[in-house]
């Protein structure tokens, strides 16, 4: 059974990988030298790494049927507090870098806990909770900094994490993100924690009745998303050497889009971390390829929008065909008064 389960998951994720591959091939043919160069590939991967860290947490949240709009702000606030504490500690070495990482993660964790408690215990809809904490976290970041970006990233962080390579063209930043993704995959798809995440998204009342501590688990899931946003905050600070206070206003939507492109349902119960990562690569690869091809900036938006819809359409169609649910793609799970499977 395990083999089957895994095979199914792989099958689902595979669809979207094929689409990403197709996009890569098209660009490679159109602009072989520029697009396929190590430098460019590295660029695409690096630029998607921080989003991937956020995407792992977002996948968990969305699998429970929730949503987290606050990730961008939490990232900023974590970066700000990390920068402040590193500046206070002073120095450019690993010690202060570690301090910053801890502060960022704790900040993110705290924000995530607030989200989780308000969603799970106060029963406020996740959209509202995280819209509120989005504003609040950003506001606090601005109050602390007076709205001016902080730039106090110690050199080791910038040189090693932000721009260092493990070997050759393999950036440390992406290696770290890959580790987070791998842990996320294991956690979601192979542990009890992940099982409960799916169960809550599938039918929270059923989970409650068989003794899953639904509230507590939801809090943990939002806390995890917050923690990862905090961790992304320190990565972001290392990469941009700036807290990018004003620069994260679309981060939440970009991450959510990646999650949904990757096949996770906004109604919960269905999803995969691997799909999310692929889903994040699709828009960033498109963007990169179109710049290389010299497509006008305005046209890029139009083309990216159209290709995005087309990609997800092809993915859906292939997936439906794989299930041989010929008449309705959603028939499978709507049988007993369930909702549309896909968002």
């Amino acid at each position, binding site marked *: 059974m395990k083999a089957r389960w895994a095979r199914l998951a792989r099958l689902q994720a595979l669809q979207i990988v094929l689409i990403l591959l197709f996009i890569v091939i098209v660009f490679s043919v159109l*602009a072989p*030298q*520029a*697009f396929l*160069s190590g*430098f*460019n590939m590295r*660029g*695409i991967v*690096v*630029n998607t790494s921080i989003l991937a860290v956020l995407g792992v947490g977002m996948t968990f949240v969305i699998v429970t049927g929730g949503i987290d709009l606050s990730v961008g702000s939490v990232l900023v606030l974590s970066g700000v507090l990390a920068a402040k504490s590193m500046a206070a500690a002073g120095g450019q070495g690993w010690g202060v870098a570690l301090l910053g990482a801890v502060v960022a993660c704790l900040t993110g964790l705290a924000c995530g806990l607030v989200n989780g408690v308000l969603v799970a215990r106060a029963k406020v809809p996740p959209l509202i909770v995280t819209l509120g904490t989005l504003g609040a976290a950003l506001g606090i970041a*601005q109050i602390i*900094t*007076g*709205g*001016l*970006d902080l*730039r106090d990233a110690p050199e080791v962080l*910038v040189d090693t994490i*932000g*721009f260092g390579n493990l070997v050759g063209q393999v950036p440390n930043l992406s290696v770290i993100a890959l580790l987070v993704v791998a842990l996320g995959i294991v956690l979601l798809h192979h542990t009890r924690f992940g099982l409960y995440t799916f169960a809550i998204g599938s039918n929270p009342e059923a989970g409650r009745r068989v003794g899953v501590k639904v509230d507590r688990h939801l809090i943990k899931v939002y806390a995890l998303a917050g923690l990862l946003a905090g961790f992304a905050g320190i990565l972001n600070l290392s*990469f*941009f*050497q*700036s807290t*990018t*206070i*004003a*620069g*994260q*206003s*679309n*981060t939440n939507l970009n991450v959510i889009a990646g999650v949904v492109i990757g096949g996770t349902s906004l109604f919960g119960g269905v999803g995969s971390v691997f799909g999310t990562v692929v889903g994040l690569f699709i828009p*960033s690869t498109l*963007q*990169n*390829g179109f*710049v*290389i091809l*010299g497509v006008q*900036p*305005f046209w890029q*938006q139009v083309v990216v929008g159209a290709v995005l819809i087309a990609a997800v359409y092809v993915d859906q169609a292939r997936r439906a065909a794989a299930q041989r649910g010929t008449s309705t793609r959603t028939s499978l799970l709507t049988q007993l008064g369930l909702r549309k499977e896909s968002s």
Partner: protein
Amino acid sequence: SGGSGGGSGGAGAHRLAFVQGVAGDAFYITMDCAAQSAAKAAGATLTTQGGQKFDPTMQTPVLQSVVSSRPEAILIAPTDVSAMQKPIEQATQQGIKVVLVDTTLRDPSVAASAIASDNEGGGKAAFDAIKQLAPNGGKVLVVSVQPGVSTTDARAKGFQDAVKADPRYTDLGVQYSMNEPQKAAQIVTAALQKDPDIVGVFATNLFSAEGSATGVRQAGKQDQVKIVGFDAGPDQVKALRDGTVQALVAQQPGKIGEEGIKQALAALNNQPVTAKIQTGFTIVTRDNVDKPEGQSALYKSSC
């Protein structure tokens, strides 16, 4: 990078790229137009890209993609003084010459040249305009985009410093429109409710000005409240002619673009470059907008 060395033998056929701070802004379009014609005159080609917002997290991937397409030199308006530092260094490590236009970096020495307007000076110029329009003094408000944008912050700071130096005027501080005209309108409406005697509003960018004008108009105080906007794109000029905005502080994007190309080509051809160039401002009002002095300061919407 090897290719660029080979290409630098002749003066022509240089491949240049321009990364705007944000796409579709009259300021950068004017800069682009001037740069394009300067490039053409020198026999070089210039491709232009830009992010959807003035935002380093958007500009970084665009720059990286542009670098991948291997131009010999890049003109770029960095959207953050430190965030763009490393990405631009990565471009120079690939053997690409970089010229900073409009905005700058923490350490501009990586670039062959940096050409910029002095935004704090622009803020000060805006206050001069308000002094002309409301000479009796009073309360003044700044409506800016959002915190953390170096250019608009510098404009606001220059303005506020100038206000503080003049006892006849009271600074009501900075409010942020988040680049939404509705929000700017709401802010100005509410601010007029709190301080009905505001005499001047300095709006640091287009939407702030637009929304501020709407708010003032809603309050029916067009005669009392003077609005000074920044930049001189067609939108701002129309607002000026319509009387919703009373003065504009115009930068010189054309000059920046032209200089940028000149410096880039000089760097590629191993000729001497000027490391730092500052450009000035023109205050455009209804009185001078149709005179040559005003006309030459206006931005273009297309080449």
